[in-house]
């Protein structure tokens, strides 16, 4: 800080640069640093190559869901049904795959493809309904996705009676759950591919630009000739598609179709996005940051596991982190106004 009327000093304090970093990058780098320090101190096994690879592998599912969530957030809404979509995908995919496998035990790969298509289609169908409700009938995203979360969860439980679905070919789990693709675990490889695809979609296509415009100012988007309904619709379909792909990969990892997975996904995916600086008001957010946000949450969960923190308490920590991120975002807006160059 300088006395009024004097020129800016040539040397700036550490606090100043911290503030600049905070405004530019948000709260995530700070949280990441703090988490790494704390968990390294708490457990010797934390900062090892093998464990960090574990973190990456475990985080892939949340990364996929969070990237989908980002589209809903970018357009100024959110998707509370991502967890249900994961569950529905898992149940439908596993049931279809098991049925196809029973019908034609010879055609292993055909039944796997049938299962994946059925699962992803079922999950995306929920995204389509969300999109129709929000874009065409102007239902608030909160009510629409909350309602669909209940509908989907009910269907998944009704179909399975709450019992896991068995009977998928062993090759499915071997390839998509535990297998490698070009030396990288398959879920990680699939996630990397989708990160690349979505990065291009968001930054290098018209549709990507339209998401930002619709979320930033829907009236200005309309006047600029953007089909705002189609854009909103596609945001929820994309959110559904990403959750569905995550659901299929998770099913492969668990080797069963489960109606009870994904319950924590809505909170965790929104937390990952918000920590990564995606604005809840819409119009602001970057794919690469969201990936880091999801990795951060995976890192915290892994660290807490290694430090033997009880799973009930872990839920507390994730909730607190989400709120801290939102509060920090408010401070950031204020700091940004102060630092206006």
């Amino acid at each position, binding site marked *: 800080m300088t006395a009024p009327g004097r020129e800016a000093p040539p040397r700036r304090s550490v606090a100043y640069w911290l503030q600049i970093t905070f405004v530019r990058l948000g709260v995530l780098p700070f949280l990441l640093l703090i988490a790494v320090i704390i968990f390294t101190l708490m457990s010797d096994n934390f900062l090892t190559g093998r464990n960090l690879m574990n973190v990456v592998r475990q985080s892939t599912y949340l990364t996929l869901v969070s990237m989908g969530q980002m589209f809903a957030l970018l357009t100024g809404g959110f998707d509370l049904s991502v967890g249900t979509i994961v569950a529905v995908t898992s149940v439908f995919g596993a049931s279809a795959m098991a049925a196809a496998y029973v019908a034609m035990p010879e055609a292993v790969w055909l039944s796997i493809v049938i299962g994946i298509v059925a699962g992803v289609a079922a999950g995306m169908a929920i995204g389509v309904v969300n999109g129709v409700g929000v874009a065409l009938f102007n239902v608030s995203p909160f009510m629409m996705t909350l309602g669909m979360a209940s509908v989907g969860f009910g269907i998944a439980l009704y179909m399975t009676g709450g019992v896991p679905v068995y009977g998928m070919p062993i090759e499915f789990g071997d390839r998509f759950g535990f297998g490698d693709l070009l030396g990288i675990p398959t879920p990680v490889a699939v996630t990397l591919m989708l990160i690349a695809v979505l990065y291009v979609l968001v*930054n290098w296509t018209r549709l990507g630009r339209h998401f*930002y415009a619709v979320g930033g100012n829907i*009236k200005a988007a309309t006047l*600029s*000739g953007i089909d705002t309904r189609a854009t909103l619709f596609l945001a929820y379909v994309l959110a559904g598609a990403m959750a569905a792909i995550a659901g299929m990969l998770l099913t492969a990892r668990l080797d069963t179709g489960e109606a009870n997975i994904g319950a924590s996904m809505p909170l965790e995916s929104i937390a990952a996005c918000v920590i990564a600086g995606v*604005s809840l008001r819409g119009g602001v957010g970057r794919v690469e940051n969201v990936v880091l946000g999801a990795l951060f949450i995976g890192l915290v969960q892994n660290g807490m596991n290694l430090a033997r923190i009880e799973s009930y308490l872990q839920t507390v920590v994730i909730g607190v982190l989400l709120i801290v991120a939102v509060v920090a975002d408010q401070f950031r807006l204020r700091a940004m106004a102060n630092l206006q160059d």
Partner: protein
Amino acid sequence: MLALDRVDFDLRPGEVHVLFGENGAGKSTLISLVAGVHKPTAGTIRFRGAPLELNSVHHARSLGISAVFQEFSLVPQMTVEQNLFLGAEQTSGGLLSKTEMHKQAQQILDRLGFPLRPTQQVDRLSRAEQQMVEIAKAFRADLSVLILDEPTASLTERETDRLFALIEQVKAQGVGIIYITHRVSEIRRIGDRITVLRDGRYIATVPAATTSESELVRLMTGRVIEQIFPQISFHPGELMLEVEQLCSEDGVVRDVSIEVRRGEIVGLAGLVGSGKSEVARACFGIEPIASGRVHFDGEDTTGFPPRQMLDRGFFYIPPDRRAEGLVMMRSVRENVALPSLNREAFSRGPLLRRRSERQIVQELASRLSLQPPRTEREVDHFSGGNQQKVLLAKCLTREVKAYVFDEPTVGVDVGTRVAIYGFIRDLCEAGAAVLLVSSDLPEILHLTNRAYVMYRGALKAELKGEEITQEAVLGHFFEREAA
């Protein structure tokens, strides 16, 4: 920029003191100081002879200074009586005395003669009825100063008469009234003295009874007019936009027919709420059309959505850049390119050509002398005038045959005004058709070669060339006495 620069103003008990001036002259700022909304940076307010420092609207109210602003301070989900007592709810023993408030609300409405029920919900009321609630709110307390900011803008003749009778009544009780209006006829009817402001400066205080209308307009606009407005050579050519007997679905526009040719600037004048903006918006596909046709460039485009109108070369520049024009938290580059992303210069197939985009936007920024010329910066971080330039740059990203400027100079300083007028002139002289929607009288007078005047949703007059005089437009614009 000062919104108000060393303005003197005094109000006597029992008088109606009219504030007169153009949009942005500082009238609203002055009353917001008196009503306790903002604090003056210099100067003092004296109340009954003693210096006064107003801390809040609440403080002002407690002294009997009550204001009715153009923007309503009503909670739409609440009833009329809940709104009337908002922030001053009456209680007994910690609980709301609802019957008592209901009775008082009914009394106030009866006294004012407004046909409202206290239990009606405010968002079910028409704009005029909401205006009545707002006025009733001011009349609730014991008054010493009453501020009315264009209170009749959405009232009918009968409601206006009723309001004027009330003003006479409180005037007789010694209340001082500050009255803002654009309408000369109202000044004649109820005004005692008139203070004219221009560009935030005090111009003169004159008696209402003896000052002529032309004198008022001279004071309001000043002589600087010749320096603000450019000389434009019009060459009306082929017909670009033709509107036939247009009626909007919400009934705001009734049976309007206009036409705009290449190489001319056509004015669409009228007060706020006269439906002039809706005509333009219906042509651009954002206002539902009930009946009538819109032809653009020889093609029937009735009800076409914005995308199709843009692709045919029709561009609508909205009045409120924050609400409708710009995506504030995105960069200048993204904003400018937004309407034209489907053009070849900006994308190939589904992929964007970001290098070409950056170059084009950079060129436009220097052409419009954007300050600072940083196109990656968020629009929110630019000054109002520069944001307006970003808005204008949007329509230079593609070939446009017809432009609609909807109130292009609301809330911008004189320097930017001159730049915008020059911009419009260049477009027109390059052969584009321009429709200028404006409630700013000088703008219509000095920029257009033809002007339509609208009044309450219908076309009232079409004026050509030499016919566009202050007298002629004002006649239809301000609803003159004994027309």
